[in-house]
């Protein structure tokens, strides 16, 4: 029997559509190192745009089935890998965060909805999927990343640049690391901007697939500085379900839209609570507010996180819940959200900014 040709194999693989990018996986360049042995064994590398790809397993079995059906194929070996692509074709090599491929901001507008909890667990979930991840705490007044990650050491200085703190496989930097203790940071707006810029420029972030940025509440200085200093891949907006929270989240989202930063979607935190003694599901802050707001605004709904004692406990103890209790409902929700965020950022790597030429 004749051996199958590479063209034949690519032709069947081109039937696999990437649901997020809306194109087939062959034209997206995801199929690499295709080889056919003399015995009819086919092997190739399937390179995803993120290790946290939500359809990873489906892609693998689809590829195996489709290639396996070609006459003459005796075996299929699919190697799944991932290579996160940089967010934009930048006009010139960036001086700010040169080794960072994707920057994801976590914002809310309103305070106390769990931005930092979401940011820490999002970063940890992306790390668990195999990506290189950094987490920048842009909350100058109320830094909570050091406590939530159990990292309270002061960063070392090497050649005039700060080394990020390493914890749980993540690279971290927070004002709480630089100025530990209970002394407040008393800064006016412009100083906040400078501090955030310094954490991007003077910290040696190295090579990262994702840099998650935990923003303070509000639609002012910190968010503006960030949106002006780096081309953000996108912003994930966290809110709690009640109207008073979703209304402010919508304002934050609209601000980022004005700054041409893509909203990756809305996340609903404290979505429900399972009472440990009676087993009843309570919706303390209502339920579904973020999902309906997302629908109204035409942005994706990324997922809902329950109110769980474990999430709070582990945050206070310094370990993100996706690491300490991976089987809990909260951890599963965060992992789901991380894969949704990763999928949305992959779309951004195919987006183009205007090209500017000066003569």
């Amino acid at each position: 029997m004749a051996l199958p040709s590479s063209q034949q194999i690519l032709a069947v693989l081109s039937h696999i559509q990437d649901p997020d990018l809306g194109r087939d996986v062959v034209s997206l360049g995801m199929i690499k190192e295709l080889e056919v042995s003399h015995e009819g064994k086919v092997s190739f590398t399937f390179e995803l745009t993120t290790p946290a790809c939500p359809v990873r397993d489906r892609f693998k079995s689809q590829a195996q089935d489709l290639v396996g059906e070609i006459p003459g194929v005796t075996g299929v070996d699919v190697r799944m890998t991932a290579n996160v692509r940089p967010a934009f074709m930048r006009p010139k090599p960036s001086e700010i965060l040169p080794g960072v491929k994707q920057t994801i901001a976590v914002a809310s507008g309103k305070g106390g909805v769990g931005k930092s909890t979401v940011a820490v667990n999002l970063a940890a979930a992306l790390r668990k999927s195999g990506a290189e991840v950094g987490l920048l705490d842009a909350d100058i007044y109320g830094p909570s990343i050091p406590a939530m990650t159990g990292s309270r050491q002061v960063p070392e200085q090497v050649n005039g640049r700060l080394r990020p703190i390493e914890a749980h496989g993540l690279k971290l930097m927070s004002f709480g690391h630089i100025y530990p203790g209970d002394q407040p940071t008393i800064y006016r707006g412009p100083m906040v901007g400078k501090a955030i810029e310094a954490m991007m420029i003077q910290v040696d972030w190295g090579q990262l697939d994702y840099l998650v940025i935990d923003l303070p509440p509000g639609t002012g200085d910190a968010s503006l500085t960030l949106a002006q200093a780096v081309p953000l891949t996108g912003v994930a907006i966290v809110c709690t379900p009640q109207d008073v929270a979703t209304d402010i989240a919508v304002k934050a989202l609209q601000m980022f839209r004005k700054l041409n930063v893509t909203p990756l979607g809305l996340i609903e935190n404290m979505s429900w609570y399972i009472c440990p003694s009676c087993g009843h599901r309570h919706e303390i802050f209502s339920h579904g507010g973020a999902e309906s707001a997302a629908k109204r605004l035409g942005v994706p709904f990324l997922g809902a996180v329950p109110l769980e004692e474990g999430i709070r406990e582990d945050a206070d103890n310094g370990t993100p819940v996706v690491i300490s209790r991976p089987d809990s409902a909260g951890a599963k929700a965060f992992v789901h959200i991380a894969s949704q965020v990763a999928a949305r950022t992959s779309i951004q790597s195919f987006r183009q900014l205007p090209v500017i030429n000066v003569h």
Partner: protein
Amino acid sequence: MEITWEDGNRITYSAEQLRWACPCAECRGEMGAPGRLSRVKTLIPEELSIKDVTLVGQYALQIAFESGHATGIYTFPYLRALRS
């Protein structure tokens, strides 16, 4: 300066046009106070030649002129609406 937009559309701008369109508070005026561009009739050549253009986040361009004036942040929608 020439911009090729995401949809393939191309617009060419002259430095002079961009200088006179500078959206900064000094040039445009603020809080009822008229800006410099409404007071002056002519600008010297250094003010009309571009020294550098930098991307501001992903929503705007900051254009620096030879004279040192660089406070204008030209958003993409603003530039798109600006026609020669």
